[in-house]
């Protein structure tokens, strides 16, 4: 008696690798964008530590510490890179969207019936994704074209006197929701941190996701508030560039530690929210 199981089917010579690569690329671009966004938020929020801190961060990213003087073109180039990632990410994500009215109707009805949190979040992701595509593009276009306009006063003026704050306010919610949901999905999608008890750990990840989103939204609101306040106070001097305290005071105080610079700047800065 023998097992006459069916032979293994003959495979075609080449696997179509595109689906795997596109899926990985969608995840990878998403991951980079989320990590970038969170870093970006921390950097921008340096204003909460004082104008000097923010000034330092801005110059840092224009390459000043390494290259001797600021090169705003670096910011432009980086912004182009991010915009490219967004476009790639969006195009890959579009594959998954309903591609006909009937698919859209089916999905809409399905989500309405099911009332299932993680499924409904997908809607949020689609809507925020669309919004992001436009809002982030506007934001990035501005940066690409005016890379030098980053600084405690320049940015604050743009926010307040340039009346960009509503855009940033919307962008803040949209981006943090999208990033939080996206990273949560990505982690589950590839099965990270699920461990031995996948069901329980998924619940924990879900909570962490919301905690992160809320944290970044709160941080963002404070930061935007700080820029708006500086912008409002600086409204009559629009166009003036910030001169950091360590440049102003260099002649008077020859030797100072970094720590002192920071705390002094904090203490002296009228715009500091502390």
């Amino acid at each position, binding site marked *: *008696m023998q*097992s*006459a*199981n*069916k032979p293994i089917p003959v495979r075609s010579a080449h696997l179509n690798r595109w689906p795997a690569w596109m899926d990985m690329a969608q995840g990878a671009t998403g991951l980079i964008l989320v990590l970038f966004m969170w870093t970006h938020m921390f950097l921008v929020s340096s204003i909460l530590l004082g104008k000097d801190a923010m000034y330092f961060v801005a110059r840092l990213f224009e390459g000043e510490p390494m290259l001797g003087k600021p090169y705003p073109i670096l910011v432009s180039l980086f912004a182009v890179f991010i915009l490219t990632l967004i476009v790639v990410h969006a195009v890959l994500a579009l594959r998954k969207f309903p591609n006909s009215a009937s698919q859209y109707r089916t999905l809409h009805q399905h989500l309405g019936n099911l009332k299932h949190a993680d499924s409904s979040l997908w809607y949020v992701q689609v809507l925020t994704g669309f919004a992001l595509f436009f809002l982030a593009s506007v934001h990035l276009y501005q940066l690409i074209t005016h890379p030098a306009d980053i600084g405690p006063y320049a940015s604050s003026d743009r926010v307040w006197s340039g009346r960009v704050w509503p855009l940033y306010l919307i962008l803040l919610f949209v981006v943090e929701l999208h990033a939080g949901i996206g990273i949560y999905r990505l982690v589950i999608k590839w099965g990270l941190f699920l461990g031995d008890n996948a069901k329980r750990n998924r619940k924990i990840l879900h909570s962490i996701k919301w905690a992160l989103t809320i944290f970044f939204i709160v941080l963002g609101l404070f930061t935007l508030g700080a820029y708006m306040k500086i912008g409002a106070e600086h409204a009559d001097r629009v166009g003036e560039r910030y001169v950091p305290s360590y440049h102003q005071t260099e002649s008077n105080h020859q030797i100072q530690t970094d720590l002192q610079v920071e705390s002094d700047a904090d203490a002296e800065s009228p715009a500091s929210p502390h």
Partner: protein
Amino acid sequence: MKTIYTDALVIGGGLAGLRVAIGIRRRGHDVVVLSLVPPKRSHSAAAQGGMQASLGNSSMGQGDNEDVHFFDTVRGSDWGADQDVVRMFVNTAPKAVRELAAWGVPWNRVERGDHQSVIDGKNVTLTESEEAHGLITARNFGGTQKWRTSYVSDGTGHSMLYTMSNQAIAEDIPVHERMEAVALIHDGERCSGAVVRNLKTGELINYVAKSTCIATGGYGRLYRATTNAVINEGMGTAIALETGVAALGNMEAVQFHPTAIFPAGILVTEGCRGDGGLLLDVDGHRFMPDYEPGKKELASRDVVSRCMETHIASGKGVQSRFGEHLWLDIRLLGKKHIDTRLREVKEICNYFLGIEPADSLIPVRPAQHYSMGGVRTDFRGESPTLKGLFAAGESACWDMHGFNRLGGNSVAETVVAGMIVGEYMSDFLESSAGDITVSSALIRDAYNKQAKYMAGFGDRNRTENPLHIMREMQELMSANVAIFRNTERLSSAVEKLQQLAIRAQKISVRSSARGANPDLVAAYRVQKMIKLSLCVAQGALQREESRGAHFREDFPLRNDKDWLCRTLATWSEGATMPTLNYEPLHVNKMELPPGWRGYGVEDRVDHPDTAARQAEVDAVRAKFEGGDRFAAQEALMPYSDKLPEKLRRRNARLGEKGDTQ
């Protein structure tokens, strides 16, 4: 009129039917499987506890072999079984388990080292050997001397059915789902297919086949309280009966399972007791040792069920709004064991009772569970009276279970019978017996008869609701033809069933819409079910003895002198009652002559030939004492020429070599 032609038609897509189909397909014949439901939903999936096969891998299974399995099965059957068939079965069961293992069933395996277990209410440590590590393990089941039941947690049937069904898909076997055979096409001598109703569209179709196999499972739904699925209405058995030619065997042999959840009737596996679970009464008293000091909770099902009902009758049942019940206690097995080895039981308790079996007792009471009776076949699985008609599994009376089936022997039978009957059906197809000349008039007549019959239910003068009639029939059977039977109740049941049969002639189907039409389905099924009920009740009334699951209060002893025989029921067209005949079992050919089972009632009326045969058997055994057990068996009851050649060889075990090819 649509007609489909095939070599073999298998009616039923459970384990037995699918295995038959695979066997036929592998021999190169065309086969079509009909199934009431998608095959993976068949009732085979509900077999929880396991499948018996004498592998003898685990420490508590050591020393097991075909002989021990044979003795257990024959004793379990209360000597009602065909001993040749039991021999064929026990020799094939290990092959079946191993075949399924190769096809993908994730049998639980022996793990080396010490393990905590519960035996007879006490914690014990069992030690498994290094050499057995990774082989298929076994659990304890009722009525067995060894731990012999191979299992996959408590989803054994599910795993087996999925594996089997996937194998059928791999073999490209067409399964026509939601198809119900409503009549066999035959000319009084030769069966040549079936008239089939499509349960999606309502259309009637002819399937013309050189050979037809019924594998439709049991007829548990004749009863109100049953563990059986709602599709187990015995339709395959009924259409065989309606030929008037094929006979049904031992229809009165109906098994009641001790542990059905009360009151829903959902099964919790015998594995609960096999793994150490206890039965308790209203006082929390473990009562089984009072009745069965030897096997206790693990006597055979017929015995345990009777003890439970007796105990309830003695006033020790637990009162509830639905009636009385007893408790099954598996708390002592521990949460880990329940979470891994009894997870379906846990889910069922969670969902239907809202309890956690690791902390709470489970309310149970016996309910109808298995149909030992069915289409009578020879050892090849063919009806001796209607050529070309085969049967396998629960729907057949092959007959390896006699008057009581052992737990774990049912799923084993489905696969083993599938393997054997598949081969014999193929032989049949390849022989001149397989040739058919079937006239189109015969097909047309069969078709027209059914079409007319179905249309008749629409008659405006009819008034009866088929579902109400079905309910009455089920209640009647549960009340009068159940665990304890007597002349009074049985004759009243027969009488009332006959009245119901008359009322059933007036069943009205209120909708004539196209499609499945559930009302119509109930209408034609209940008429057939009443016929089956009459076979059961009349068979039980006539059999004036107690044997296995058939217990007569007015004839409490097993009577080998008068009743060592198999009941054969046939139904002539137009008759209102079955015709009963009896087929003797020959004591002087038995390898294991009738005696005490080792549990249950010891008194009996012996057959006059028993003593002589016992002496013969003892002499042969003495001669081979300590020698070759196969030679002793061969001398007592040669059977191997009845097995298909490829299934005759010996099975290997740890310490016992098998026949190599």
